[in-house]
């Protein structure tokens, strides 16, 4: 049984048919063609699938897709503004905050949720904000540095 769901994806109105029980991650990737959120576990444990729903981070693998009806979903696919990278993206690039890059889209979303709420976070606040996101290539130090750097850049701009 498929049912229709309409929501806002990175600012655009999106309508998609979802299978009963489908999670948001699968619907974004297969239904909407937004491949930026990644599957790492399907258990909420890794954060690779993190997206923002109404501005707050959620692990999309555990979100029943139909519950986002009428809400706004943001993914890394919509992070940059045209050709210009988001300050977080720029900081991740310049700070070598990704190796294999598989955790990166989720990290960026968790970081964006933080900076949107708290433009000048402390280091422990950054660590807390990405505590649900695993990076197996062990890039936590550069990732935390990059998020702090993005906050500084934004503050300066």
């Amino acid at each position: 049984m498929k049912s229709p769901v309409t929501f806002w994806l990175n600012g655009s109105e999106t309508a998609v048919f979802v299978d009963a029980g489908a999670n948001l991650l699968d619907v974004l990737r297969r239904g909407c063609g937004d491949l930026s959120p990644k599957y790492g576990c399907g258990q909420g444990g890794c954060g690779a699938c993190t997206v923002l729903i109404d501005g707050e981070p959620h692990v999309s693998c555990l979100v029943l897709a139909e519950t986002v009806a009428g809400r706004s979903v943001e993914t890394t696919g919509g992070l940059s503004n045209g050709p210009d990278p988001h300050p977080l993206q720029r900081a991740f690039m310049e700070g070598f905050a990704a190796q294999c890059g598989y955790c990166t889209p989720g990290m960026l979303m968790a970081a964006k949720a933080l900076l949107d709420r708290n433009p000048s976070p402390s280091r422990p606040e950054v660590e807390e904000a990405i505590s649900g996101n695993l990076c197996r290539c062990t890039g936590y130090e550069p990732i935390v540095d990059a998020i702090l750097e993005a906050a500084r850049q934004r503050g300066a701009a």
Partner: protein
Amino acid sequence: MPTEYRKDLFADERSDDFDIVGKPIIRQDILGHVTGRSKFYDDHAFDGLLHMRCVRSAHHHARIRSVDSSAAERQDGVVRVLGGRDVPVNVNTLLSLINFGRDDEPLLAIGKVGYVGQPILAIVATSVRAAQEAVDAVKVEYEELPHVLDVEEALKPEAPIVNEEYPNNTFDYFDTYDHQKLRFGDVETAFSRADHIVEGEYQMSPIEQAPMETCGAIAAPETNDRITVHTSTQALFFSVGVTAKQLDISSARLHFIGGTVGGGFGGKVDSHHEPLAALACLATGKPVKYMWDRAEEMQVGGPRGGERWRIKDGVMRDGRIIARAFTGFFDAGAYTRLSSYAVQKSTGHLPGPYSIPNVASNVYCVFTNRTPSTAMRGFGITAVDFAIERHMDKVARAVGMDPIELRILNAYRDGDMKAHRREAKNCALIESCQAVAQKTGWSLSADAMRASSKVGGGEGALGVIPETVTDDEGRIGERRRSGLAPEPLSGQGTRRLLPEGYSSNNSSAFGNAPQREDMEAEIERLGFKGATVVSSTPQGPADQTASSARPIEPRETAHAVHPAGARGGPSLPAAYTQRPASTINQPIAQPPERAPGTPVVQQPATPPAAAEAENESAATHFQRGVRRPGVSRFISGSRRR
């Protein structure tokens, strides 16, 4: 922390004009990573993508009495159920591509399972859920067998046979021994001379690589009779070779795309997803994804194998280690994969970065009913290094010496002879120890601070290959029959004495694998300096004139030394050549059509005659690799000259 360069050290051995190291650089692939547009294997959209899940063994060790997939095949969304008999060449070993080891692992188990989670059937369905439900609907009847989960238990005469291809539960080295030997000098005599004997046992558990992206592959039909395979593999050409072999098709039909990998750390070399996905693609004509979920990744993904090491040192009062013996056990799990090679890698690493004039080791690649283990960052080295360094501390306590000074005293210096008969070069352990001591405020004696890797190397006995005692203990099968202890030189086998200076790069006594001729390094071509290539008649060690140090031994000599002469097509030992016809001449190409509802296991195999004919035609258009009697057709390319 900013990187600090010690420009005072080895200044004449390297240049300082780094233009990359120590400077921030923007990775060429990072724009894709931060925009979420890097294409990992699963980031490709396919119409009508099918999903695959496996029916997996519920037991460590069991005979499969029956498999009934009839209910599963009737379920909604189920497209195809594949079993071991649908795989043209079901049994493989990863390193068969370089002719190392015998095919021992089925892609889908037939008749028997050797570990929990071993795949038995692969179910292809229109959704993950449908495939999961079908998996649950398959009934497998098992007859549980006794299992063994400990490496040393597995060596005992009464242990169950884990892997029929290796009925002694150990990988066969050089078709002669049940372990990899290293013999250098005479440890027994040295032990009797030593002031202290220090023994220790060290163990490391298996470790899952746990990449963020789970292993998987998508195989999709292309035009031109090819299959595109997007894969997470870390070893694209391994995976092509394995897929070509197991599907028995030309690799020219396989278009593999990979390289963007969501973390691998060694766990993505096993090449199981690609053949299964490609087989299902051939069988259904549709794109098929075989992706592990996280639970599978943790349960059946090949981990770094567990290892157990025992070290026995003979130490003089002043802290000099004069003898070191190792007994090492690699837990391969139920099948070989890369453990056979890890054992050799570790043997090449012994006795650690220390100059010890007498070294012996027996290292075993042991089969147990655990998840087969595979590569992981420095596998073969990590655990034994852990053991060695723990043991160095233990030795330091035994002789009452500062542990760093003990290391400096025994460290390799340039010019020392290593146990695998190469001269140590570019040594830096002493300097590293000194730097660590300085940084941590650890005080060292003036002598230790003055020591240098460049001074004192190769002096006296440490510079030469010593007279070496070898033995023939631990021949294949002997241990299981007689309960022989695993330690080196622990039995009554025949001892032989190799004269001082005797070297070979191809003798089992020394730890190098006999490689296939066409895979052998040609020293002239590699520009190996100081290599003297002598063409000589075969010469045994007994009639060898002593003490002329020879850097590189001619191959013929090595050949003669090798007890079983396991080299060259014609002289291949029986175990390599007498492959059961059934493993080679499996049905080729597409799995046979079959009526829905027929359980896979009841399918008749393609008649052998037809298979033979197919094989011929495959061979004629199959231009890749070498084709010689007794040589795998799947060696990925012949040597360019």
